């Protein structure tokens, strides 16, 4: 995993460690449903999704967002994220393989804490953008947790 990041070493444009996860499974969906108490029928009920015109149950956007957050925490350390915002652009289904990546877009100090801003993207195996996001994280205070 990533080494400690020091604020002075950060350059705007630096890339986050890239993560490839999958193929995702129905078990992944069920496991997240239990962990987060996300029981929308969209995520487990095959007759429901077919009636809605979808080919399969859908991976929760927040599961994708959770997996993608590891890009940021691998970079800045666990517990260092101060803002995390995601927009869901395309559905992810069982069998899909996602790639999470991002880059640093700015450096700033807020209340004496050195921080970075960044953007985040998740694509599926066809290169379609499934999630687009942004974040702010503290760097260089605690040692990153990995």
């Amino acid at each position, binding site marked *: *995993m990533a080494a400690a990041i020091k604020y002075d070493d950060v350059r705007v444009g630096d890339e986050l460690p890239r993560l490839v*996860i999958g193929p995702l499974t129905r078990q*992944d969906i069920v*496991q*997240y449903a*239990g*962990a*987060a*108490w*996300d*029981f*929308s*029928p*969209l995520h487990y009920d095959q007759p*429901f999704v077919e*009636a*809605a015109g979808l080919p399969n149950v859908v991976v929760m*956007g*927040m*599961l994708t*967002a*959770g*997996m993608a*957050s*590891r890009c*940021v*925490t*691998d970079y800045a*350390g*666990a*517990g260092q*994220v*101060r*803002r*995390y*915002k*995601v*927009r*869901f652009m395309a559905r992810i289904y069982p069998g899909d393989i996602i790639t999470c990546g991002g880059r640093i877009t700015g450096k700033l100090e807020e209340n004496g804490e050195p921080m970075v801003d960044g953007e985040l993207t998740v694509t599926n195996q066809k290169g379609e953008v499934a999630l687009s996001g942004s*974040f702010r994280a503290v760097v260089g205070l*605690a*040692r990153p*947790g*990995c």
Partner: protein
Amino acid sequence: MVDRSFIGLRSRTFSMPIEWGKVREFARAIKDPNPAYLDPDFARRVHGGIPIPPTFLMTSMAWEIPEWESGKVVQLDYGNGVHGEQEFELLKPIFVGDVLSWTERIADIHEKAGARGGMMKFAIIEGNYFNQRGDQVAISRSVLIEFPPRTQAQ
């Protein structure tokens, strides 16, 4: 069907303990092997406590349902609607052992013209979280989107 009359609706105050078992379960569900979540000794040594993953406050739903479910509160048509955006502002560190209290409210509902005609409806739900010392530690914003009703032409 989402409409503006729901703006301002507010839940009662909910409360939940931040527990290591739940943090560990959530970290495994999002496939994050970071020892900060999985190894308490490591976490205390390196982080001064067991931190939470950035999206962990999604687990607060377990303490709200069935009393409050934002999509149902705004009468979202689940077959024709989505959770479109999510934001967490994590204002102060949250660790295992903290006890959070929060309320949810329907902060806004508005319409925009959809790309394929018809009006898309957006409901913004905001949660404000405080810890056991009364410090505000987080703000959650969810955007639920309902698409225009399907027509035979589509």
